[in-house]
């Protein structure tokens, strides 16, 4: 409601027409997001406490969607057959189209469902029960048509979105090329402007395009020649909407994959495809920004999707563990099996909390920049999903390895989560570097003062260090009398506060140690990213559990338990990582790791002698 009110207010604001050159007062400026502030050691608790709620009407609306979709997935989707045939049968696709799942985030005026991010995440939970369908839908709407949705003109939207929403047309996102994964500089596909200036001629080929064989609409990124500010001709990337009917679009045969076998992945070739100039997304030469925005906005839903999958897995494996007997005891009575269930429950709980917290933040009015949070959700949930599926398989023992059961398919399907939409390694760099950039901008002056030898600042720093060693009480107002966290989560809250504080000092230390050369310190950045992901996960879990207790949700004591387990573990991991970050490269093994890798890579082989070799 408040969002609507704000939007209405903003629309009602009088525009100072007399002073067109003066910047307008904006009520909804892009807010500094929560995660970036963590790098400064500050906790913006108003962003994450209380846990975002949806209104009752919205909830009812979601539940209306959830019922039929759940029914469809449990009754009409035969995942095993999809996996075996490596194809989603047309009747299943039609069923998905009838449910409107091809236009979940397309506004209602263009015939979509117009779901908010939260509702999209909720449906993603169910859709993820079949990996192939989830990937097909995600490639269609999370990246395939996202370009039109966020950067397209009204004409483009009106022309393409209705048919995309109905599923009559399927979209695909064509960025990757044989020689280019994350490096935009090596994109070879070229679009040349025709002499009359009315259309572009597109030439090149793209690989590993999800939905490449099914799609009618492609978002294609290609190089174009652009005259830049200095009047020089430069190659820049431009995004195009390409219809298959434009001609010259061919695709290779579907790739045979490890998992998500039902989704269609193939090469797409463009040969002298005529693309009208109206089909440029954004502006000519502005394709890089479009691509980045699409990629950044598409990730958050993986959290709820993975959580949905794990919840299903917990059900299936718990059934098995409670019935199978060994040594006259049920499997569920063995401590090592219990540990695995706890592990899965904690992971599912935390990734669910993160996903819905992020979705809630994105649904707020204004232009919340949640790309870092979304990346954190993606990294955490994909790794959690992989670990959980593996543990589930372990509980089942040999049975899980058999193709007669669905578990091995889950394992194969889950493996892609770590790879696509930006590999986890790259996203870790993104998370850490974005935060470092943000913190660096703010801390530069202070660090410079210290480096210059300003006694006052240095003394202040020294005193604060001294207080840290004496045992500082960190208080961000999470716990205590006026705290936002429920008292039963007090210890977790304190741990979170302490971690955030020391993370802030560590980041400051790293910035003063490495400066801008920190981009080359990938091992350091990985630790930084791991810490901040843990911090965000702790925050989300604490926030959600607090809300659950406060409003008295069913089984909230279980939530408190899971939260406390996770926070305690994450606290120790964070402390260890922070301690490692405070050491120099020769003390925390970084040097040794790099050296060992270098020796291996120099010979491009495992270079140790065989244990049976001898010299005498």
């Amino acid at each position: 409601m408040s969002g609507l009110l704000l939007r209405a207010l903003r629309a009602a604001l009088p525009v100072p027409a007399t002073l067109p050159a003066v910047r307008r007062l904006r009520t909804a400026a892009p807010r500094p997001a929560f995660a970036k502030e963590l790098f400064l050691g500050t906790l913006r608790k108003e962003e994450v406490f209380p846990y975002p709620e949806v209104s009752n009407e919205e909830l009812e609306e979601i539940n209306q969607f959830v019922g039929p979709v759940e029914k469809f997935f449990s009754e009409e989707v035969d995942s095993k057959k999809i996996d075996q045939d490596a194809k989603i049968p047309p009747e299943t696709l039609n069923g998905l189209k009838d449910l409107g799942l091809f236009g979940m985030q397309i506004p209602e005026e263009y015939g979509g469902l117009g779901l908010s991010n939260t509702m999209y995440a909720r449906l993603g939970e169910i859709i993820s029960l079949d990996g192939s369908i989830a990937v097909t839908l995600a490639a269609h709407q999370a990246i395939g048509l996202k370009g039109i949705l966020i950067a397209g003109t009204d004409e483009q939207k009106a022309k393409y979105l209705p048919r995309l929403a109905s599923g009559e047309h399927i979209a695909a996102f064509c960025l990757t090329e044989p020689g280019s994964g994350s490096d935009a500089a090596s994109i070879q596909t070229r679009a040349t402007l025709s002499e009359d200036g009315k259309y572009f001629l597109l030439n090149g080929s793209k690989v590993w395009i999800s939905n490449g064989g099914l799609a009618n609409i492609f978002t294609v990124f290609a190089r174009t020649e652009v005259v830049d500010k200095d009047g020089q001709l430069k190659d820049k990337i431009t995004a195009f909407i390409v219809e298959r009917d434009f001609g010259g679009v061919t695709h290779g045969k579907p790739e045979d994959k490890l998992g998500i076998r039902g989704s269609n992945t193939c090469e797409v070739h463009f040969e002298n495809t005529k693309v009208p100039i109206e089909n440029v997304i954004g502006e000519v030469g502005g394709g890089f920004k479009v691509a980045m925005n699409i990629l950044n906005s598409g990730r958050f839903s993986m959290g709820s999707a993975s959580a949905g999958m794990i919840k299903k897995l917990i059900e299936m494996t718990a059934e098995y563990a409670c019935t199978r007997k060994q040594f006259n005891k049920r499997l569920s009575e063995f401590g090592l099996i219990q540990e695995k269930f706890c592990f899965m429950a904690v992971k599912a709980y935390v990734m669910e909390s993160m996903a819905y917290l992020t979705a809630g933040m994105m649904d707020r009015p204004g232009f919340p920049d949640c790309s870092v949070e979304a990346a954190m959700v993606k990294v955490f949930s994909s790794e959690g999903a992989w670990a959980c599926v593996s543990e589930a398989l372990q509980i089942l023992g040999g049975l899980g390895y058999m193709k007669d059961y669905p578990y091995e398919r889950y394992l194969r399907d889950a493996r892609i989560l770590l790879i696509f939409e930006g590999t986890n390694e790259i996203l870790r760099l993104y998370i850490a570097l974005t935060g470092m950039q943000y913190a660096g901008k703010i801390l530069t002056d202070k660090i410079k003062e210290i480096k210059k030898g300003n006694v006052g600042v240095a003394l202040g720093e020294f005193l604060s260090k001294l207080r840290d060693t004496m045992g500082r009480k960190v208080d961000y107002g999470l716990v205590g009398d006026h705290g936002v966290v429920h008292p039963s989560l007090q210890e977790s809250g304190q741990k979170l506060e302490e971690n955030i504080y020391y993370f802030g000092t560590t980041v400051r230390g790293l910035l003063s140690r490495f400066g801008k050369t920190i981009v080359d310190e990938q091992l350091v950045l990985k630790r930084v990213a791991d810490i901040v992901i843990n911090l965000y996960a702790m925050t989300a879990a604490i926030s959600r559990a607090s809300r659950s207790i406060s409003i008295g949700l069913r089984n909230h004591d279980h939530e408190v338990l899971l939260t406390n387990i996770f926070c305690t573990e994450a606290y120790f991991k964070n402390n260890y990582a922070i301690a490692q970050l405070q050491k120099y490269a020769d003390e925390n093994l970084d040097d040794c790791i790099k050296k060992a890798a270098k020796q291996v890579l120099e010979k491009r082989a495992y270079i140790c002698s065989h244990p049976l070799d001898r010299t005498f």
Partner: protein
Amino acid sequence: MRLHWARVLPRGLWGGWGAPQVARSLCQRSSRPAGDPAGQAGGDASGDAAGEAVGAPAWRGSSRGVQDEDRGPAAFAAALAALEQAPGRRVGRLELVAAALAAMPVLGVAREREAYHRLLRLLPRGPWVPRGPFQRLLAPFPQQQECGLQILEQMERYGVVPDAETRFLLLGIFGPRSRPVRKCQRLLYWLPRLRHVDPHPLPPHLPPPGLAAARLGLHRIANDPDARITVYQHPVPDEGDNEGSVQPYIIGAQSPDQQSLLARHGPARPVFVEGPFPLWLRRTRLCYYVLRGDPLPPHLREDPPDPERSLYYPLHLDLDLERGPWDDDDFDVEEVEEGPVFALCMAGAGDRRTLGKWIAGLQEANPVLGSTPVVFRLGDGHPPAGAPGGPPAVPPPPAVLEPPDLPRGPGHSGGADAAGPGSGAGQ
């Protein structure tokens, strides 16, 4: 000669079983440096004669076969077998062993452990073992032990690791805790440890100077797995001692990185062919030539950072903070600016004509070279190379020279000789 009198003493007086230990050892020592073949001494002439008669001809025969290395081991084995069967007193064995040691490398058996064992079997078991602790204290049988040590030293020099049998033989000859046995133990300790100490080992048998050796040498310099080694011109005739006498070989190495460096260098600046520079493969001297350029001005060396490059994460941080001195763990090295090396080559001849063919061959993979001026700066292989009016050419060192004869072409004796754009190919 000095102690010749010792030899004329009756046997019972100086080496017999009845003589006291100390006296015996002294006598043995004094008899050793006599140096000349034992047969001239009075002692037991018949035994010596037999040793000479059997050993020497076989020995000489094998030493004549120096050219034929294949026959070396067999000849060595035959000679020693004959010696072992020779009856009678074993006099002059020390000299024999010394001579055999000297001949082993020529016969090609210097790396065979069995050959050393056979030498050790020539030495008598028992008589040189000191008896009792006192004799052991008084450095017994020094000449004999020295002989054992020489065998072991030669093993060490050729990296032959002793084994249990060596030790067993030494124990039998010199007794426990004698100097050769200790040396053997030290060898057993060190040689296996040092066997793989060379990170870039050469094959045990090097090919003779020529195309095969050049390929090996290029592999050694261009130690980049991506580097491609191309034979631009095959030698005629392509084997034998006079390999390449009609047409010299040309072989070059270039990696993809070097190709992109050359492309970046551009046609505007000249590139230089320099050389010859020496490269030693054990005792073989090879010469190589490099194609290099002057360093590019800094602004051309790397592309300016492109903010629109990485789709996923920033490649550069926009911060005004440098790296602190605490984390700068590189050594403070004063770097001398050197131009990039674009390609390497070895050729059977070092004249401009031959090297021009190399440049022409390189143009196939590097089209930019066709429009780049190529300057030949060929020296005589001895620094400083090729300054006009520089020091006169010194005769090359006594080694196997590669290329065999350095031609005195126009580009050779010094002057930097500029060829026009693309003319390198035509020469």
